[in-house]
């Protein structure tokens, strides 16, 4: 096979094994499935089925009103956004009657799915707690006893609201109000599932907690809601993964994630997003970082049809530090519109953004970022680095950086590069005996290395394997 043919074959094999590995679906056997479309009746029904307090129902209905009033964003991929048919989506599916505390309590079919995705195995090997969400509800949940004894709360959001209403009510929607944007409003109206984590002062959760989100039904809308509160001096690392079956019509995933790092706390939030290519992934993620705290978003976007996601950190206390490290891989018919926002609202705060993207087979990546400094945020430092790698002539990458600096004593660095997978790099590696596919994989893995090295080893290995499969396809 000529070099050119090999290359084309490789590019067309992008994600070729997704269907087999993640894209399968189960027969639907649900406790409750709402009709298609979004109405106040459905919102009320969700709240009633969950036996929610009155204030939450009111919050939902108000949010629904905001959703209807807010226009679609006029930026990002407006064409794809306007293709969303909100009346064709199922907003709530309850897959089982109760939540399992061990995997035997989870309905057989769903358990098999998570088995196939390797969740119980990962749990046994290296996780301190797991929640597994299937459609709208968390069907399995566990936390290590020692953490529970230390007072760490790790629940699905619905249980969190039931069991710790006071903490939830104090913090819920304080970081991301319903009116923040159209999709946060939608999530606020129909949210279900997600994680609630509260780490007591001084407690360090050294082993990661993980949530796994699975969409199964066609035209499903999944709207999990996550709230993580790290009390002073505490540490937690939370990891989320997600996949869905491949369908010919669209599904919608629209999460809201709020993080609160109190004085001296440290939150690390890692995402490996691997939705099938028919899923819209429109997510609002934001953290508030108080004095001397540290927040890190480690954000990997491999899947979905359109992702629009810009993890934000509001640095509100002196010396708070924020980092966003993200990678995006866009293949055929994919647009990864991702980025980061850093808002410096206190002196001596620092932030780092590193964004790496790869576009191939006509895929498109965009970096969209904001650095903002309020008056009085003196002596702040921020650095932004965006590297884009194009695998061919038909793929695309854009950068949309915004800076709003209302303070003089600041140090801001911004660097952006776009490169093509160099013919010279390929030739160099091939002159050392590597085939074209091996050489390409090596270059791509190297490009993602700053991200991969931040992942727990097991995830790093899995990510490298995914990339290798995508790059090599069936080329032997």
């Amino acid at each position, binding site marked *: 096979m000529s070099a050119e043919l090999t290359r084309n074959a490789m590019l067309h094999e992008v994600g070729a094994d997704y269907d087999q590995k993640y894209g399968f679906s189960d027969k639907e056997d649900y406790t409750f499935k709402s009709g298609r479309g979004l109405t106040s009746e459905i919102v009320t029904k969700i709240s009633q089925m969950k036996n929610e307090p009155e204030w939450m129902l009111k919050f939902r209905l108000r949010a629904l009103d905001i959703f209807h009033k807010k226009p679609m964003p006029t930026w990002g991929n407006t064409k794809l956004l306007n293709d969303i048919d909100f009346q064709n989506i199922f907003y709530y599916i309850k897959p089982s009657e109760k939540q399992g505390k061990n995997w035997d309590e989870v309905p057989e079919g769903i358990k098999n799915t998570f088995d196939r995705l390797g969740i119980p195995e990962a749990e046994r090997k290296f996780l301190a707690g797991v929640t597994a969400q299937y459609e709208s509800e968390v069907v399995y949940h566990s936390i290590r006893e020692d953490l529970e004894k230390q007072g760490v709360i790790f629940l699905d959001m619905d249980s969190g609201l039931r069991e710790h209403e006071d903490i939830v009510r104090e913090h819920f929607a304080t970081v991301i109000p319903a009116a923040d944007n159209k999709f946060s409003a939608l999530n606020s109206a129909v949210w279900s599932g997600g994680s609630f984590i509260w780490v007591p002062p001084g407690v360090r959760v050294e082993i990661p907690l993980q949530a796994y989100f699975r969409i199964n039904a066609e035209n499903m809308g999944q709207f999990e809601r996550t709230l993580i509160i790290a009390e002073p001096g505490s540490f937690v690392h939370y990891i989320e993964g997600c996949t869905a079956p491949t369908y010919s019509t669209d599904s919608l995933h629209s999460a809201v994630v709020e993080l609160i790092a109190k004085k001296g706390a440290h939150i690390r939030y890692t995402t490996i997003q691997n939705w099938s290519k028919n899923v819209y992934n429109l997510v609002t993620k934001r953290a508030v970082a108080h004095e001397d705290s540290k927040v890190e978003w480690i954000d990997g976007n491999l899947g979905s049809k359109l992702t629009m996601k810009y993890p934000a950190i509001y640095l509100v206390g002196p010396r708070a530090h924020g980092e966003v490290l993200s990678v995006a891989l866009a293949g055929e018919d994919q647009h990864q519109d991702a980025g980061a926002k850093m808002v410096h609202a206190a002196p001596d705060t620092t932030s780092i953004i590193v964004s790496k993207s790869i576009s191939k087979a006509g895929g498109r990546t965009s970096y969209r970022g904001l650095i903002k400094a309020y008056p009085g945020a003196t002596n702040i430092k921020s650095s932004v680095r965006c590297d884009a790698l194009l695998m061919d002539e038909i793929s695309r990458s854009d950068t949309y950086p915004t800076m709003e600096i209302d303070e003089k004593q600041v140090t801001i660095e911004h660097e952006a590069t776009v490169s093509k997978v*160099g013919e010279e790099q390929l*030739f160099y590696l091939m*002159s*050392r005996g590597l085939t074209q596919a091996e050489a390409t994989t090596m270059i791509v893995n*190297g490009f993602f*290395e*700053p991200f991969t090295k931040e992942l727990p080893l097991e995830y790093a290995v899995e990510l490298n394997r995914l990339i290798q499969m995508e790059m090599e396809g069936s080329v032997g």
Partner: protein
Amino acid sequence: MTSREPILVIKDLHVAVEDKQILKGVNLTINKGEVHALMGRNGSGKSTLGYTLMGHPRYHITQGKVLFKGKDLSEMTADERARAGMYLAFQYPVAIPGVSVSNFLRASVKAVRGQDVPVKEFRKELKEHLTKLGVKEDFLSRYVNDGFSGGEKKRLEILQMALMKPQMALLDETDSGLDIDALKTVSAGITALAGPEMGILLITHYQRILNYVTPQFVHVMQDGQIVLSGSGELAHKLEAEGYDFVTKEPAVATQSRT
């Protein structure tokens, strides 16, 4: 000296890059155990010959042929040539960010030798070469050629050559960008690797490296052809008189390289 068994035979080689004819009939035979120096001004086609022999996809053979161990190279890709025993030490080695030197070396050694080398054994082998080349071990965890000094890049090229044990080594301006100490170390590395089974083609602009690696044959390239060949003495003559005596064309100031 040796059995005079040819390892590389270049016959009437014409090469074009994007329709621009650069090599216009090169003839050269290198036998096992021989060290040849290819000299000439910038732009005379020396590096083009190196790239062409290694199989760079942008260098097209328009006429003539190259036999490597008796086999026509034209249908072989760069990786196939490497696995067959061809090696090119680059004049400007390319950075591969995020790929550590040790991972890169392991992958290439595995590819060229056709089998995985046990980690322990590989480490030991590496260490020996590192010591010889005067390189610290933390070199291995750095990213390939990323932020390397000129000397470090050239040492890595020689380190790879030592591990890959090629039968035909093309060394493209391996002396450029080196201070005198680095030049000595790198030259000693090349000399140590040379042997009765291997052919070496030293592509160089200056005579300097030839004080440390002694060629049996020296060729001068001009405008895509070898216009003069001789013994090792020829290099000294070139050093003393410049390239002008091989041509009637007016002298062109050569660029100095640092």
